[in-house]
């Protein structure tokens, strides 16, 4: 189920890229440059082209009572009440929390309430199901430096995987990233996990975009195999530094001369240097993460999170000092050399060192079970003597990823005023026997295990065997 394509940054893409190259050569030859007099003004992109058109779906005032609540920031309320209305969390508290008249009441006895799960690393939409070559839209593997591409321009909203993540995983927010074939993979996009006709209708309003960078084996293998830079880890770093230096100089040039020709690639990097875009760095090995932290200091950017950080436990102290999160799997290991030193206690060890730990998926199956991944890691940590409560561990799925994505003021915990992104689980969500019972996004009930009408079916699934089935 786990596709090596994503992890290994598929070499099969070379063929597809070559075909695209032929087509673009022909169209260039056919086009005629406009006469000089008609040349338009220098293009200045708007701050937010392709803006979000997302709007919350209708909800009704709802109160869940008698539940165990994990607030996502480490708090726990027994016999708790939560009130949702107008798309927002109105109140969270004990049994004495006032419930507005007319609110739908749901008995949460024996059930758990948590914030919606946030996945900081997904390829839903850009490597959608079915995983056919025509859908392989995650890696623009035509150059190791492609900060000009945006993952949202590859996202296919009809990927059936979004609905599985909602119904089985309680995922309400996810970041879709480009793949890791390139050192600079492009911009990631943060989505609300709602079905839509367009990617714009899924975009999380106001969420900062992310820059995907990649260390290690994938870039050097993809390009080294073509006898092209980078072929080594030192080549990775050298080309990254040269690129950041170009961005620094471009920013200075633009400051001096507003008529400087726009460079879409360097525009992305300037947004990072100016602190308006977050860096999410695919990086497995401890030594490489330490180098990347220094690179951030050298050029003045901050890395929000290392992804797939299987050796984060070796440098958890450095991560704490840098304020950089580590997004990790519970127990993936051994699929390539840089994942060879993975251990089951990575997540609790990072947490225990005072650094920011996140559970992520990078996988259309794993995203359906992030709660279970957290549960395994938590148990392995406890077995080695690390004491973390269930409610604190839920931070790995909630406020920590929200912080890494720059959306913690909007979601990621159950605080009055935040978006009403809520999961009601039919038991303890750290048990294998538990599933989401109901999921709300911005207060709209978008999944209900008891209501087949609230089981989203993508266009792709219509008229196919299994349409509308439980999944």
């Amino acid at each position, binding site marked *: *189920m*786990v*596709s*090596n394509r994503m992890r*290994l940054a598929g070499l099969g893409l070379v063929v597809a890229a070559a075909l695209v190259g032929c087509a673009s050569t022909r169209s260039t030859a056919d086009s005629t440059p406009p006469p000089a007099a008609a040349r338009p003004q220098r293009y200045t992109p708007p701050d937010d082209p392709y803006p979000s058109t997302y709007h919350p779906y209708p909800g009704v005032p709802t109160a869940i009572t008698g539940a165990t609540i994990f607030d996502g920031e480490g708090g726990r309320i027994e016999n708790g009440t939560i009130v949702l209305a107008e798309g927002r969390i109105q109140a969270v508290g004990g049994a004495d929390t006032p419930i507005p008249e007319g609110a739908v009441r749901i008995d949460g006895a024996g059930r758990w309430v948590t914030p919606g799960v946030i996945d900081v690393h997904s390829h839903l939409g850009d490597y959608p*199901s*079915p*995983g*056919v070559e025509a859908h392989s839209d995650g890696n623009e593997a035509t150059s190791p430096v492609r900060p000009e591409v945006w993952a949202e321009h590859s996202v296919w909203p009809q990927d*059936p*995987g979004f609905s*599985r993540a909602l119904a*089985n995983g309680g995922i309400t927010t996810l970041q879709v990233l480009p793949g890791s074939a390139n050192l600079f993979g492009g911009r990631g996009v943060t989505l609300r996990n709602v079905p839509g006709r367009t990617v714009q209708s899924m975009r999380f309003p106001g969420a900062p975009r992310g820059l995907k960078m990649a260390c290690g084996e994938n870039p050097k293998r993809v390009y080294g195999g073509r006898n092209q830079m980078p072929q080594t880890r030192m080549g990775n770093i050298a080309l990254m530094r040269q690129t950041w230096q170009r961005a620094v100089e471009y920013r200075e040039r633009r400051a001096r001369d507003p008529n400087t020709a726009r460079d879409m690639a360097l525009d992305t990097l300037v947004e990072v240097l100016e602190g308006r875009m977050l860096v999410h760095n695919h990086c497995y090995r401890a030594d490489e993460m330490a180098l990347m932290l220094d690179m951030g200091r050298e050029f003045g950017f901050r890395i929000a999170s290392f992804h797939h950080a299987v050796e984060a*436990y*070796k*440098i958890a*102290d*450095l991560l704490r000092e840098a304020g950089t999160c580590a997004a990790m799997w519970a*127990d*993936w*290991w*051994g*699929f*390539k*050399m840089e994942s060879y*030193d*993975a*251990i*089951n*206690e990575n997540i609790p*060890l990072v947490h225990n060192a005072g650094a920011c730990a996140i559970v992520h998926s990078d996988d259309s*199956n794993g995203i*359906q*079970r992030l709660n*279970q991944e957290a*549960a*395994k890691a*938590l*148990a*392995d940590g*406890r*077995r*080695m003597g690390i004491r973390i409560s269930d409610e604190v561990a839920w931070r790995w799925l909630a406020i920590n990823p929200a912080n890494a994505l720059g959306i913690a003021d909007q979601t990621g915990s159950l605080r009055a005023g935040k978006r009403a992104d809520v999961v009601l689980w*039919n038991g303890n969500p*750290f*048990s*294998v*026997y*538990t*599933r989401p019972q109901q999921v709300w996004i911005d207060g709209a009930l978008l999944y209900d*295990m*008891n209501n*087949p009408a609230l089981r989203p079916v993508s266009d792709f*699934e219509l008229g*196919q*065997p*299994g349409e509308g*089935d*439980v*999944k």
Partner: protein
Amino acid sequence: MTRLAILLAGIAMLAAAPATAETIAITGGRVVVGDGSDPIDGGTVVIRDGRIVAAGAHVAIPAGATTVDASGRWVTPGIVAGFSRIGLVEVDAVDATNDAQAATSPFSAAIDVVPAINPQSSSIAINRAAGVTRAVVSPATGRSIFAGQGAVIDLGGDMEPVTRGRLFQFVELGEDGAGDAGGSRASAHVLLRNALREARDLRAPIGSAGARSLRQAPSDAPPEDLAENPYLLPGAQRSDDVLLTRFDAAALVPVLQGRQLLLIHVERASDILQTLALRREFPRLRLVLVGAAEGWRVADRIAAARVPVIANALTDLPSSFEQLAATQSNVGRMRAAGVEVAIGMINDDEARQVRLSTQYAGNLVAIARVPGHSGLSWNEAFAAISAGPAEALGLGGEIGSLRPGRRADVVIWDGDPLELATGVEAVWIDGVRQSLDNRQTRLRDRYRQPQEGALPHAYDPR
């Protein structure tokens, strides 16, 4: 425990590989036999000479037995990985350590995984520490629809991993098979039929000891012994009109005769039916379906054919066009229709992560509580990763449960073995207590504190 059973266990022990003379009694635990029966609280499991003597309530503890107190613990048979490539791979992406597939080999059906299995691969120790004690190990296809012959191994910390070699032939007949066969399912089916024809047409040399037609081949002749195989003797006759090497064709003789299992990977409902139909032409084939993501759509037909299925537990995405109808309810629906279903991991990190079997089985219990879903009861789910795969592979008498006479693969857990928080406290394989240490536990212990002391971590006391 009857005297006969003890006698039989003793006889079987003689044929077993490593065993100890030790008698062990594990007492006070919640005992799961693994055959689908209810757990027994306060049960006792008695092991002698590497085999299970008895498991259950009111079991007498033999004099002189070493007693292990499992009060408050669960005691179960070791997990059997129903489909895997464990022992064939150290690091997937490091070709030199990856023996799962031979992409440019001149051979196909003749390939036998046994010489490639490395009992010291990290994966064996890591998965053993999670309670997996046996695994079905299959090669993957290279240039042919025939991957070669697979084995059942144990995950013990010794140098004798093979429980049963050349147990089955593995074939791809779905999308992968079409690719292996040159581009279409139709070609894959012709290749399969032609290969079986070539096996049937093999003739031993006239006048030799093996000068019998295939149909008269003695059933006690070990087909796996190439030196004894009459179809490989000098002068054995073959037509010129062949595609397979002699070795490959000879390897299919026991498949054709029904003396070796034929595991076929198919996912699509129509591919499943085409596979079941093979038995009309080749009635002695002993089929096992692997994958079968759309099995629920033709579950009655699979059940009627009495063909067991080794399925992925949680496939629920249309990740290819051959599994458009995938749902986590597949296993439960097939089971409800009377299909014998076990859980395996096909194309799912099966060289390294068979330890996820317990989590997968637990999820099938979870969905039994979700309206509209078909899951499994706890007893069925545990059996699907213990006795189920053993029986699908014809080894239910040897492994997969704590019934008397079975190999003593026993695990003590600190809780419900399907739960996420549960850990393994002790593992026996063939009655031998196993180490639970591995590279991962060593790294964990080294980096309890990431900061280095007076000297770098490389000098940490070991």
